[in-house]
Structures are given as structure tokens and as C-alpha cells.
């Protein structure tokens, strides 16, 4: 048979456990627990909204589609800026090792306000409106993104093996930092290679 002291210990344990259960709502209201890893997803999908069918071989005036997406896993509301840049085969991409963005000037931008746990997805239509080519070089002077005609000036040299001009359309993810009151590059970018046909 159980002794009186053991019964007292058992009863006290039961009461303390019950007390903790009663205190749980107060404890959870006051103490904030770890929120897990904070990160942003940033990716491009192809014309069929899947991770394939990305435009590659492009022609003047033809419209191409891709989907750009950002997923906010930062646990609070964020203000993202996506800079769209156009590079050729020799332009330097953002440096992943140093976390520095490309020095190229942005041709377009997206301002996105995204709640925690939400995904922003946008179907982007782009076309090369004006291309000037002479000999082994070609120059894109006008590109259209989402019905906005943008003046660019990007030259490329003919790639001898594929007989086309290579361009790279890339997107950099920047995040507004409330502490510094400025946008900071997130060391995240995504890009697609484009092979330009000029009818040479």
C-alpha cells in the first residue's frame, strides 16, 4: 500500500502540473518562442508556369512569357524590390560569394509588399522590339516588359558555335531594411539565357 508521504508527493506534483496548465496562456502571451529560419524564395517559372518551357531562342517582336515569384518566409510583412537587368555574355552577374549585386543599370523594377507566408507571382511578358545588327555584332535598343517600352543599349557579339547572339535577362531581389531605411541586396538572383536570332 502507498504511504502518506508518497501520496503527498503525488498530490503536490498533480497540483503543480495543473497550476502550470493554468499559467500556460499567460506564459505564451508574454514569452515569444523561436520563429524558425527566416528566408525568401525567389524563382522564375517557364511559360507554362512550370519549371520548364523557359524562352531561349528569341526573335524580334515576338512576345515571350515567364512567371516570377517571391515567397515570404520572413515571419512578417516585407517590402521587396525586384530589379530587372539585361546583360550580354561578358557582363558580370551578381557576385554570390561577396553578396554584391550586378553593376548593370536596372531596366525595370517591381515593388512588392508581401505578408508573411504569402507568395507573389507575376506573369511577365517581354519582347525585343528593336534590334540593330551589323556583321558579328548586334545591339538591342528597345525591349518591352509588361507593356512598358524600355530604351536599352546592349550590344552582343555573335556566338560562333550557335550562330546567335546571347543575352541574359536577370532579376535581383532587394529587401527594404527598416533599420537602415534603404534597400539591401539579398544575394538572390535568378536569370534566363536568351539566344537572339537576327536573320543573319
Amino acid at each position, binding site marked *: *500500500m502507498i504511504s502518506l508521504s508518497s*501520496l503527498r508527493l503525488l498530490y503536490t506534483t498533480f497540483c503543480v502540473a495543473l497550476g502550470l496548465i493554468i499559467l500556460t496562456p499567460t506564459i505564451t*502571451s508574454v514569452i515569444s518562442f523561436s520563429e524558425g529560419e527566416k528566408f525568401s524564395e525567389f524563382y522564375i517559372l517557364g511559360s507554362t508556369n512550370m519549371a520548364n518551357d523557359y524562352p531561349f531562342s528569341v526573335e524580334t517582336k515576338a512576345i515571350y512569357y515567364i512567371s516570377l515569384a517571391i515567397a515570404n518566409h520572413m515571419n*512578417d*510583412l516585407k517590402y521587396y524590390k525586384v530589379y530587372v537587368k539585361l546583360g550580354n555574355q561578358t557582363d558580370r552577374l551578381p557576385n554570390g560569394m561577396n553578396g554584391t549585386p550586378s553593376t548593370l543599370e536596372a*531596366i525595370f523594377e517591381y515593388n512588392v509588399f*508581401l505578408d508573411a507566408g504569402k507568395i507573389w507571382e507575376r506573369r511577365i511578358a517581354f519582347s525585343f522590339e528593336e534590334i540593330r545588327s551589323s556583321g558579328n555584332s548586334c545591339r538591342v535598343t528597345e525591349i518591352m516588359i509588361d507593356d*512598358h517600352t524600355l530604351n536599352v543599349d546592349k550590344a552582343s557579339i555573335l556566338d560562333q558555335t550557335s550562330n546567335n547572339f546571347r543575352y541574359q535577362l536577370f532579376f535581383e531581389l532587394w529587401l527594404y531594411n527598416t533599420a537602415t531605411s534603404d534597400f539591401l541586396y539579398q544575394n538572390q538572383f535568378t536569370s534566363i539565357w536568351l539566344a537572339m536570332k537576327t536573320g543573319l
Partner: protein
Amino acid sequence: MVLFVFLFLCLSRCCLVLGYSSDQASSLIAEADGSIRTAFVAVAEAEQAGANVSSLVMRLNEIGPVLTEANVAFRTGDYDNASLLAGRCVSLVDGVASEAQYLKNSAESARRNQLMLVTSASSVGLCVLFVVGLFGWKFLKWRFVKHALGMKPEEVTEV
């Protein structure tokens, strides 16, 4: 004469509306950008306070493309359109920060009330547990002793 005055007014109005310089457009875009940032900070603070800011986020997402268009117009050298769009941004963002501040205050007040309610309920619960615990222990002890006494062997009386 009337026609002349009318034409003069129209032309002067056109001159007022159009003819923004690069610096003016740039400063208007910077103002619009600053207003959006301020509004975002206010909305983010309201969200952290526990307010439902989904409608404000929707409004900000409607303003974002307008700022993009203003920047595009500026890059293409269309300073008039860039200025007009920047002005539109400022007018669209107007009121967002104040509404966010109101929501933040409401959320903080609701949070304080909830915390007070939870703390009070917990305190009452603990008091009840303490009193019931004491009486419960006395009852349990009485039952234990009674049960223990019931198990005690009866005294045999000699005749």
C-alpha cells in the same frame, strides 16, 4: 477678347501642368518613394502589433506599380508623366500611414486587454487551485487515514 483670355488661360494651365525638368521629376519621385517607405514602416509596425493589415497591404501593392511606371517614365525621359505618376503615388499613399497607426493603437489596446484578461483568469485559476488543493488534500488524507484504520486488525477480547 473672351476667346483670347480663354486661350491664354488654357496655355498658362498647360505650362503649369507640363514642362517638368529632370530635377523636378526626380525630386517628386524621391518624395513618392519616401512616402511609400514611411507608409510601409507604419503598416509593418501595425502588423507586428497584431493588427490585420491585409487591406493596407493591398493598397500598397496597388501603389507599387504606379511608382514603377513613374521610374520607367523618368528613365525614358518623359519627365511630365513621371512627375504626374509620382504625384499620383503620393495621393494614393496618403492616409495609409495614419490608418496603420490607428490599427496599431487598436491592436496594442486589444492585446493589453487580452493580456490582462488572461492574467486575471490565470490568477483566479491559481487561487481556486490553491483552495481546492488544500481541501482536496485534507479530504484525501482523511480518506487515507480512514482506509488505513479500516485495515487495522481488530482487538481480541479475552473472556
